[in-house]
């Protein structure tokens, strides 16, 4: 048996660590915005249910955010350890984008996170709300820059290549707003919102199944279902536009996603099948005639290119792309379905009173994470065999690697991630299993940090906290 090549191990390590990582930001982007909305509603209406729900989720946010930070630090160093040639060549273009992410997003989030988690009693409501907003804005800035960098690797623009072989920017505007970036940004931010929405909805539904009068659970469920009703259809449209953009710039990726090996006019839509790279055909295909051309070219007889148009060594992995794409799309439509179902019951006034819907919502709780992972696998493996699409091959990007060293670090990462993040998920599930109460407690470590002499009078009258309309004493 041949030992795996160092580069395959390095790819496996990157795929493993980035897959673990993306789950946390996908959740924290959405949750930060949700918390900002909840706190804003509390300040505006003064109703305690918003504060209680805020406090319930902020405890979960703290854990998720911590896991995102530590898994993210790994990413910022892995470019250098395993992909040093890539780092040297793309550093002048991608480096500043990541630099802007750190400066505009990470510091903003980290700087205000402490105030958001522990500072309610120290700074008063308005400043605390400002901190919550800054954390939410920080997560969105972070998404902006990292997706810009990722999109540039997919659809590079605004660059030239210098004497030592590095990519250098000619036009920063073109680099940042490269052709696929706007589509990817919208698609991912909506995905983060939906992911959070469905998890919040599942938690709400879980508690409604036990007690359908719980006001916090009703609020969570209602808001989440509204998110599903409104955002899931928008996401389908955004995803379609993103797909058409991919067709324009990375047609081989689309060919693999659709399981097309042969180029033909009036191509069918292959619903299911088993793409076989060796035979260069999709076996057992269940097809709808002409629909593939209609979707991709908006014409029944439009030409859709197949993988055979490209040299064999430039093909991405068709079976994986074909299936991960279908998983993502399938979940997307299931989300739309749940949204419409909930809308129907909402109009009939039975939103909190339909066990079947509640059970379905619980079942769909993790669906956003699966869709996000499936979507990222599709787009990232679809970029292969390149790191910078069409310009820098993955095989030419790696460090001068030593297989045993990469294998060792991969094994360590695998064990540690499963143990540490497994424990984290366990604690998260336990937090979500707790019933959201009226008068929900603040962050558990909030108490001890308070020091004598700086405690605002507010916190001495905890019963007054729920009435933000009154002037602060």
């Amino acid at each position: 048996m041949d030992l795996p090549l160092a580069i395959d191990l390095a790819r496996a390590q990157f795929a493993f660590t980035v897959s673990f990582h993306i789950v946390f930001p996908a959740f924290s982007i959405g949750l930060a915005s949700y918390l900002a909305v909840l706190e804003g509603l509390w300040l505006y209406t003064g109703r305690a249910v918003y504060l209680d729900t805020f406090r319930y989720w902020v405890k979960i946010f703290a854990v998720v955010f911590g896991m995102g930070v530590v898994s993210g630090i790994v990413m910022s160093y892995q470019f250098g350890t395993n992909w040093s040639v890539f780092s040297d060549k793309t550093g002048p273009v991608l480096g500043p984008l990541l630099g802007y992410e750190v400066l505009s997003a990470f510091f903003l989030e980290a700087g205000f996170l402490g105030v958001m988690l522990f500072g309610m009693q120290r700074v008063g409501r308005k400043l605390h709300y400002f901190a919550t907003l800054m954390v939410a804005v920080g997560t969105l800035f972070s998404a902006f820059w990292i997706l810009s960098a990722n999109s540039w690797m997919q659809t590079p623009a605004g660059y030239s290549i210098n004497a030592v072989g590095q990519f250098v920017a000619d036009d920063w505007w073109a680099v940042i707003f490269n052709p696929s970036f706007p589509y990817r940004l919208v698609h991912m931010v909506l995905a983060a919102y939906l992911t959070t929405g469905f998890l919040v909805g599942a938690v709400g539904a879980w508690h409604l199944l036990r007690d359908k009068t719980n006001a916090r659970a009703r609020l969570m469920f209602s808001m989440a279902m509204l998110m599903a009703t409104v955002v899931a259809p928008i996401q389908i449209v955004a995803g379609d536009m993103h797909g058409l953009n991919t067709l324009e710039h990375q047609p081989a990726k689309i060919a693999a996603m659709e399981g097309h090996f042969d180029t033909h006019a009036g191509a069918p839509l292959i619903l299911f099948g088993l793409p076989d790279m060796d035979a260069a055909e999709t076996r057992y295909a269940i097809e709808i005639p002409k629909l593939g051309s209609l979707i991709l070219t908006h014409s029944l007889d439009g030409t859709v290119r197949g993988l055979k148009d490209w040299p064999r060594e430039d093909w991405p992995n068709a079976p994986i792309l074909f299936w991960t794409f279908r998983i993502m799309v399938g979940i997307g439509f299931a989300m739309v379905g749940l949204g419409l179902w909930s809308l129907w019951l909402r109009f009939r006034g039975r939103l909190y009173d339909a066990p079947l819907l509640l059970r379905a919502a619980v079942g769909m709780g993790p669906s956003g994470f699966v869709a996000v992972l499936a979507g990222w696998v599709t787009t990232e493996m679809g970029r292969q065999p390149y790191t910078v699409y069409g310009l820098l091959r993955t095989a030419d990007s790696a460090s001068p690697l030593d297989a045993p060293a990469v294998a060792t670090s991969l094994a360590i990462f695998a064990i540690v991630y499963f143990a540490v993040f497994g424990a984290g998920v366990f604690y998260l599930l336990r937090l979500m299993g707790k019933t959201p109460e009226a008068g929900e407690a603040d962050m558990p470590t909030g108490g001890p940090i308070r020091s004598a002499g700086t405690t605002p009078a507010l916190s001495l009258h905890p019963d007054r906290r729920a009435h933000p309309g009154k002037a602060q004493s």
Partner: protein
Amino acid sequence: MTLDFALIWAGLIAFAVLAYVILDGFDLGVGILFPLMRGEAHRDTAMNSVAPIWDGNETWLVLGGGGLFAVFPLAYAIVMPALYMPITIMLIALIFRGVAFEYRWKTVRAKWVWDISFALGSLTATFAQGIALGALIQGIPVVGRAYGGGWWDWLTPFSLFTGISLVVGYALLGSTWLIMKTEGRVQRQAYRIAWFTGMGTIGLIGIVSLWTLFLNPVFMERWFSMPRMLFVAIVPILVLATAASLFFGLNDRRTFRPFLSAIGLFVLCFAGLGISFYPFIVPPSVTIWQAAAPDNSLAFLLVGASVLLPLILCYTGYSYWVFRGKVSEDEGYH
């Protein structure tokens, strides 16, 4: 006249690394001292003194890594493979200590597991950082535009020694931080520990400094050629003065001065390293200008940094201000 962007960025990256070393240094130090603390209440107090700010502190590490990638991509591409194992170990250790901040409060049964995770993670991350520093000081062989050495080059008696030194140094920062932020028994213990970590740090600074001089004749020349020597000699003199300030501060039971003196020691050591290294970013062969990205990359990021860095310093300062004052021992976890 044109700006020397590479030099400006070398200064900014150096600032980010120094900020990281000082800020995460004291909260890693608190983790290193964790096993010495008696009783859960003491450990709770110690951890709470850094809980609201550790995250921001660690962001400077991301800026160090991300910034190096952005403005000195060649240095990043050479140093990271050279330090593959210490960096990987540091990252893993930081995971263990980072999650402990949250997980520790989520369980009663397994709290001890996350105590160990926090302490061992802090210790290991520090040790790995010290080893990485030592490996950088002793020099990294370069072939073409890549690392040219072996996978175990980083492991030498010198790098192990710098690893131990950094552990003691961070423990000094941690103990003086606790002096400043706590009271009662935790503070009294921190005073006792600070004597040992202070003396240890001073001794180790001396040994590492002398050892460094003999690693590379260039380092010797940086310090002992005239008239340079007259200027650089001020660094060791200031180290002695700062050490005196530290010990007088401890003796007089001052609360702020020990911590500020410990920071002073780190700043001076960092300045000393700068004197030895300059103009190299990867000693002994790659200079700041060779490693720098093209000027338009440096200028593009500098525009943002010149606005955002001052803002970051402002709101980081604000966050420290919000959580100022003593962390009380009596107000336990509830």
